[in-house]
């Protein structure tokens, strides 16, 4: 129980780019995430949210501080922390199926037979309804479909934590809503631990158990954390007038637009 409450631990993470005294991006960020929890990190553009995600992913080393996932320190990237990149990052010369299969082969090559890997690849494509388009190349499918394949690829790694870096940022509003519902449904079914970067307040409230709000950079840190005690499954339309939803949304909006207004954007 104790271990599951502190499934992901971010301890006093600092990040500066450049040499000593260079630009400080993150200052003293500490956060713990429970197993199965959906946490969003929200903040203005350039505040260092993506840097924080990359540190958890292991793609960027922290200047100081530690990150532990399931009691293992993060020192390098790995499939236990699968990332869904903002721009999908599918390999354009591989088909939808091959993109997912590449990950499955690499991670489960020693553990599963060929048939099992094939079935596992298809099962993950099924989760995002991409089985029918499995032989298409990324260039032949829409942006939303590409992002779904990116999610299937990340899920296929059976990660301990799923890291979503503004996964819906490049999509139109309708596709985005559809994909948000899908991600919500999948993460409820599979019980994934998810950390999502976003700058969309509605998205954060709708999907998250907790919303972590970062102050403005430089030297951003956690300004406030908002619990979202809404029952699941959550239905977008019913929530619009739900007082808890409205309250959370107002709290986040107030944080972003009153207490930590993005000065440069004015």
């Amino acid at each position, binding site marked *: 129980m104790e271990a599951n409450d502190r499934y992901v631990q971010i301890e006093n993470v600092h990040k500066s780019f450049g040499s000593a005294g260079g630009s400080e991006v993150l200052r003293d960020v500490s956060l713990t995430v429970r197993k199965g929890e959906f946490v969003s990190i929200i903040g203005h553009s350039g505040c260092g949210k993506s840097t924080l995600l990359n540190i958890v992913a292991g793609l960027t080393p922290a200047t100081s501080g530690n990150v532990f996932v399931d009691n293992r320190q993060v020192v390098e*990237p790995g499939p236990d922390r699968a990332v869904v990149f903002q721009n999908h990052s599918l*390999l354009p010369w591989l088909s939808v199926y091959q993109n997912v299969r590449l990950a499955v082969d690499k991670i489960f090559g020693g553990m599963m037979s060929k048939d099992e890997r094939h079935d596992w690849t298809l099962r993950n494509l099924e989760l995002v309804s991409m*089985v029918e388009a499995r032989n298409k190349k990324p260039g032949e499918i829409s942006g939303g479909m590409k992002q779904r394949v990116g999610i299937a690829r990340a899920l296929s790694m059976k990660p301990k934590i799923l890291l979503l870096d503004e996964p819906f940022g490049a999509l139109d509003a309708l596709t985005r809503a559809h994909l948000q519902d899908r991600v919500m449904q999948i993460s409820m079914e599979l019980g994934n631990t998810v950390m999502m970067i976003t700058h969309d307040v509605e998205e954060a409230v709708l999907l998250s158990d907790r919303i972590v709000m970062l102050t403005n950079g430089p030297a951003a840190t956690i300004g406030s954390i908002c619990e979202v005690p809404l029952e699941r499954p959550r239905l977008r339309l019913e929530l619009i007038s739900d007082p808890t939803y409205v309250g959370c949304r107002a709290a986040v909006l107030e944080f972003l637009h009153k207490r930590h207004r993005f000065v440069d954007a004015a």
Partner: protein
Amino acid sequence: MSSTAKSLQHAPAAKVVPLNAPAKAAEPVEASTPAPSAAPSAAASSRLARLAAVTKRRALNALPPVLAVGALLGVWELLCAAPDATLPPPSRVVSETWELIVDPFFDRGGIDKGLFWHIYASIKRVALGYFLAAIGGIGLGVLIGSSKWATRALDPIFQVLRTIPPLAWLPLSLAAFRDGQPSAIFVIFITAIWPIIINTAVGIRNIPQDYQNVAKVLRLNRGEYFVSIMLPAAAPFIFTGLRIGVGLSWLAIVAAEMLIGGTGIGFFIWDSWNSSRISDIILALLYVGIVGMLLDRAIAVLGRIVTRGTAST
């Protein structure tokens, strides 16, 4: 899992068609009975019209090059018509080389061979030298594309060496190999390798960070990264280099063969000059041009097949 997904996807569609087909088909047949007499002829005539349109478009596309070649030959014929002209007009080229044109495959021993054998010998040299250049060029390109140290160490050397004209290497390689055949192959190699190295290196450097992140998350090892990410991502650049390389090889082979002798289209041209067979030279030049174009096209087509889908999304 896969079979259920498949059957879910296809089964309903397959069943729906035979069930609905008879019911729906019954009505239209009756309704359209008066039509058949008119319909086929209309369809046929529209097909004929489309065929005529396609033929016309093809003819119009073919017209400009035919006119241009005709005009060129006409001007050439006029310019060389005078009895004291130094070069033969096209009509005399054809009549004097007719034997070579109709029988490219004769072999009377020694260097007295049909043009096919000369071109074959040249292509063989180019193929070998070019193949070695492709292997070495891609290898070195990957090295300097992926290592800053290798770039710093090797780039200045390459920048100097690549400007050396191909033929300048020939005496040195003759001194080293003491034989014409390997020397010619070396000249091809050293000519073709530079664009392949440079383009490969650019392709490797331009691999998007996203692909590298994917590789890192999956913990691909060096070998896996090379095969699954690096080569496919750099393939369009590599093929650009290969295509420039094959053109340069063909440029160099003719000159190299003039000097090393034996067989080969370059030697044939030089030998014809020494025997004052100007018409043979002109025919050989035409063949050199056509083969060069075909080599270029072959690499372009190969590149298109291999890099299908690697264009960024």
